[in-house]
């Protein structure tokens, strides 16, 4: 088995709000192996982005541990050593907001190099090299982000994330704001970089069809908890958790072959409850059509039904 690069153990991130405590991430554990793409899917409010932000240190964990290459990093961004920030980078969801509109593209890509102490004349060379890597022309250096297209902005954001030669990159919905043809281009670039630069990815998206094509392993989140974790092939061919099935059967697809792989139609019902007022027992029980009395009382444990395939559901733990 390959080496683990990130280990998350019993991670909790709660927010204290006016309405009460929001359990955005509630006791989740997973590992990311070197060179793989670990996909995290879930609907809005499932806590997938909070997980990524906590991993990157933008939020400080409420409880639990995060380690990177064996080093404990369960602290906020300000306390993390500078050398770590060189290795862990992030690409954000909205390319419109992830690039400062008042800075030129050169200044934007240059920033990580500047922070990590690269000399000025070398910086410019590296910025041009990075632009070439993401296939943008050199005369973009002086442009403002507001003057280029959405896909190109995301390419700039990727160039910035790669500037310091990181080993681990979190991709938070990198293509959800873009059209499919642009999405295809960006995803292919990301896959190419993973191979040539030896990167490990944490890939976050709500798009399961996309996940099918990029992830090595997939974890699915619902209301701050992981419901099912499995290698991508197994996850899509043999989904076990009722929520996974519901989600998979709701995806709109365009070809007959895809129709064939979808599980039998599970009519989706209900909405995600408010994370302030979570249901008792298994969080999913009010929307689940296999719900039993036991599900309303106890929260099921995560069990390994076959090697590498973890499911959190009472129907499988008997």
């Amino acid at each position, binding site marked *: 088995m390959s080496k683990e690069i990130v280990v998350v153990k019993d991670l909790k991130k709660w927010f204290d709000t006016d309405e009460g405590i929001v359990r955005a991430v509630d006791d989740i554990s997973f590992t990311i192996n070197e060179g793989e793409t670990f996909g995290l899917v879930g609907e809005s409010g499932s806590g997938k982005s909070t997980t990524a932000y906590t991993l*990157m*240190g*933008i939020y400080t964990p409420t409880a639990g541990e995060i380690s990177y290459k064996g080093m404990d990093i369960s602290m906020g*961004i300000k306390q993390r050593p*500078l050398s770590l*920030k*060189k290795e*862990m*980078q*992030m690409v*954000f*969801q*909205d390319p419109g*907001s*992830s*690039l*400062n*509109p*008042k*800075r*030129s593209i050169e200044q*934007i890509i240059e*920033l*990580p190099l500047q*922070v*990590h102490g690269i000399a000025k004349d070398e910086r410019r060379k590296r910025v041009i090299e990075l632009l070439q890597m993401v296939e943008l022309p050199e005369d973009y250096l*002086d*442009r403002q982000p*507001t003057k280029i297209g959405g896909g190109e902005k995301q390419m700039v*954001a990727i160039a*910035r994330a790669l500037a*310091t030669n990181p080993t681990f990159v979190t991709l938070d919905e990198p293509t959800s704001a873009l059209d499919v043809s642009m999405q295809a281009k960006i995803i292919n670039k990301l896959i190419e970089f993973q191979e040539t630069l030896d990167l490990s990815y944490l890939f976050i998206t709500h798009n399961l069809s996309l996940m099918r094509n990029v992830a090595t392993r997939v974890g699915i989140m619902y209301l701050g908890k992981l419901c099912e974790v499995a290698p991508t092939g197994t996850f899509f061919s043999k989904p076990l958790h009722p929520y996974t099935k519901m989600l998979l059967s709701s995806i709109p697809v365009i070809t007959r072959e895809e129709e064939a792989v979808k599980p039998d139609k599970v009519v989706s019902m209900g909405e995600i409850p408010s994370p302030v007022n979570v249901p008792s027992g298994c969080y999913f029980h009010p929307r689940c059509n296999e719900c039993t009395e036991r599900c309303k009382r106890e929260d099921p444990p995560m069990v390994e039904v076959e090697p590498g395939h973890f499911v959190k559901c009472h129907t499988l733990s008997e």
Partner: protein
Amino acid sequence: MNTELMKERWRRNWYKFSRNPLSILGLAVVLAIILIAIFADFFAPYPEHAFVFVDFKNAKRPPCWQYLCGTDMAGRDILSRIFFGFRYSLVMAVSVLSVATPPGVLLGLVAGYMRDTWVDIAIMRVADVFLSVPSMVLALAVCSMLEPTLYNAMLAVTVMWWPWYTRLVYGAASSIKNEYFVQAAEVTGASTFHILFGEIFPNCLSTIFTKMTLDVGWVILIGSTLSFVGLGAQPPTPDLGTMVSDGSKYIPAQWWISLFPALFIVVIILGFNLLGDGVRDMLAGD
């Protein structure tokens, strides 16, 4: 930044600014006022009338071709005094804003970025205290404690002016702080100094400039009000507020002594407000 892009940006700015004819009017008024203020000696028909000058023979003359706005009780040409008054008004506005804005902006930036920490609470509560005292009352208090001079009036206005900028920038900074580009800078390990001045500050500039332009008019109004009640510039300084105040004793018979300085206060404020709207249109969006 290469010059071609720079030129292009100015062209675009001018296009947005000039969409509203009132903005151009505002710009014209403001430019005229600034020019007149700088070259008051040249524009004024009787520059020697600005300060101490007495010509009782021509006192209280109504507007005529010789004295376009009439003369005051000492026989001084009112238009000349108004032109010199512009100089004091502008000096007042520029010095108050250039002193009040930097600390106001700095405190707002820091408080906004450190939102929900004790730094934020300390800064914003102090600002709230200043804002909760009616500005005029605060200025009157400062002026009546100190000697009534133009400088003390400026000091008083400055003291009450900075919290407006703190609050303005605080609002902008605390929302910009949540933008992904700030988080990207944090993830990469950029210093707090860089985040404050390299990332957040440039995005606040347009709001700050807009407010400054609009504020010029208000500072002048407050300065004139202080002078009007006798706590600002003292005679014979040709200050618009003082002139209105001096002339008010002769209303309604010699209405022009008060009316023309008052009218020009209105023109100044209107000019800067129209210009401010234009600046806002110009810097909006992008």
